[in-house]
């Protein structure tokens, strides 16, 4: 089984044998790969019916649940890593979710699309229209992405809540890294994978 490039980046950050909670786990591809290759025991949280069935079909433990209904009943330190891939921008209270993630596990891995990418900026500046791009494919009125942000916005939120960024990988829409996006990530990066740890950690 080959893993989607963005999930590969996440998988590389998950230690062998870790207990993993995947918020918005989609079809369960990451958890299935981690179970097979890393001896990981994982659980997915998902709200989409079709995706849940696909998780069950591949033998991934999945709980149907709306992240917006809260995560307070998940145990503190119940996991080693909480993953949230391309889901942060779709939750109602991203800051609260991030805090819960770092309560549930000492480490979190978060990916989201960058609204600060130069194409988005150009589209907004020149055409005056909300950008549609490969990594942001939805029209403004029909998008699950209610909290789009830039890398700079996200890092500001982490600083405000004293969350430590211990790792950051910035890639383009093809999940490749290049010189420009390493130097000016907020301008040239389309997707970032952040490793977060607790305040002061």
């Amino acid at each position, binding site marked *: 089984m080959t893993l989607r490039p963005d999930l590969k980046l996440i998988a590389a950050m998950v230690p062998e044998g870790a207990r993993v909670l995947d918020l918005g786990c989609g079809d369960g591809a990451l958890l299935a790969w981690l179970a097979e290759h890393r001896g990981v*025991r994982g*659980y997915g949280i998902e709200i989409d*019916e079709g995706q*849940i*069935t696909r*998780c*069950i*079909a*591949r*033998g*991934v*433990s*999945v*709980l*149907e*649940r709306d992240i917006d209904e809260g995560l307070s*009943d*998940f*145990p503190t330190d*119940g996991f080693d890593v909480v993953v949230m891939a391309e889901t942060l921008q779709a939750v109602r209270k991203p800051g609260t979710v991030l805090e819960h993630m770092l309560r549930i596990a000492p480490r979190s891995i978060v990916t989201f699309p960058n609204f600060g990418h130069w194409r988005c900026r150009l589209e907004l500046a020149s055409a005056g229209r909300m950008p549609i791009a490969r990594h942001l494919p939805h029209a403004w009125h029909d998008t699950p992405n209610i909290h789009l942000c830039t890398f700079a916005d996200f890092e500001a939120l982490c600083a405000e809540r004293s969350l430590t960024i211990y790792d950051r990988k910035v890639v383009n829409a093809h999940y490749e890294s290049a010189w420009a996006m390493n130097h000016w990530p907020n301008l040239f990066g389309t997707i970032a994978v952040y490793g977060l740890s607790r305040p002061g950690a």
Partner: protein
Amino acid sequence: MAEAAPSDQHSVGLVTAESEDFPGPFPLASGESLPAYRLVYECYGTLNADRSNALLICHALSGHHHAAGYYDLEDPKPGWWDTAIGPGKAIDTNRFFVVALNNLGGCHGSTGPTSLNPATGRPYGPDFPTVTVPDWVNAQAALANRLGIERWAAVVGGSLGGMQALQWALSYPDRVGATVAIASTPRLSAQNIAFNEIARQAITADPDFREGRYLEAGVVPTAGLRLARMLGHVTYQSDDGLREKFGRAVRTGDLDILQDVQFQVESYLQYQGKSFSRRFDANTYLLMTRALDYFDPARAYGDDLVATFAAMKAKLLLISFTTDWRFPSARSREMALAALRAGREVSYVDVDAAQGHDAFLLPVPRYLEVLGTYLQGLEPSP
């Protein structure tokens, strides 16, 4: 074994009930014991060579061993879970050897209050001992032994049947591969118990109940049973479901002059109550509702649901229905989280369905798809 009825390739076809007699004494959780007992059951599909594809169906309050198929060609109705059991269905009899039985204390052929008490030569009636969910599971294990089934690929049940599926994973952790508990709960709420008590009062207050010895008196407390079933039936439906089915439609009478008015929902409930009172034993109803009330596996684990799930080995599938207010989604979600905390393999699905608690018996597409997909993923040896 069933031959496929020509009309439906997804039916298990014609089936026959079988029975096994067990020597006593059979010890019960209450401290009492049964001298000897009989269990009636049905089987669908074929047990494979290494006996690894057996799947147990546990029935709910009013269920029995006839879960799928037909008894003869004129049989108007198939078994109670025919929507889910059959070749190519969610519980696929091409893959699984499915066993369904009538529980101890039942009134469909297994030893129960209508059976003769060997000590007196009269029907047990109210003297039939209290049986609990763990007692049922022990009797089911005796049947499994008799059938040569060391380990179930899965134990599956809805409502009270789901409780038995959970109990299996606790009582016999090494004998269950997967537990599927549908529209179930780890314990009844005060409201649940209250409804059960009203139903019991309806039965015991019927003058024909005769302190449970109605069989010897040659009468049946049909009025009480009817009322109990009508009450139960309302709690198994959702407000939306009843509205969709009946609304305020009038069956007889005239709403304008308020004379002899009978709403559709009234006649429906009366029909349900009447047909139930003809086929169900009042003492069995009392006994089964008591078993529901007493079920509380976490009690033995310091009321700690996480510790309860930690004592299991089976993986779990939990399914709830959004409009089920009898055993609401929150109960299944609570179990799912406890199982997760205990490190069990667990999946939980909350199916959007208008039919309330009864949805577990109905052909709700997403529900049957999830159930089928999950069971498909279990790998009994070929």
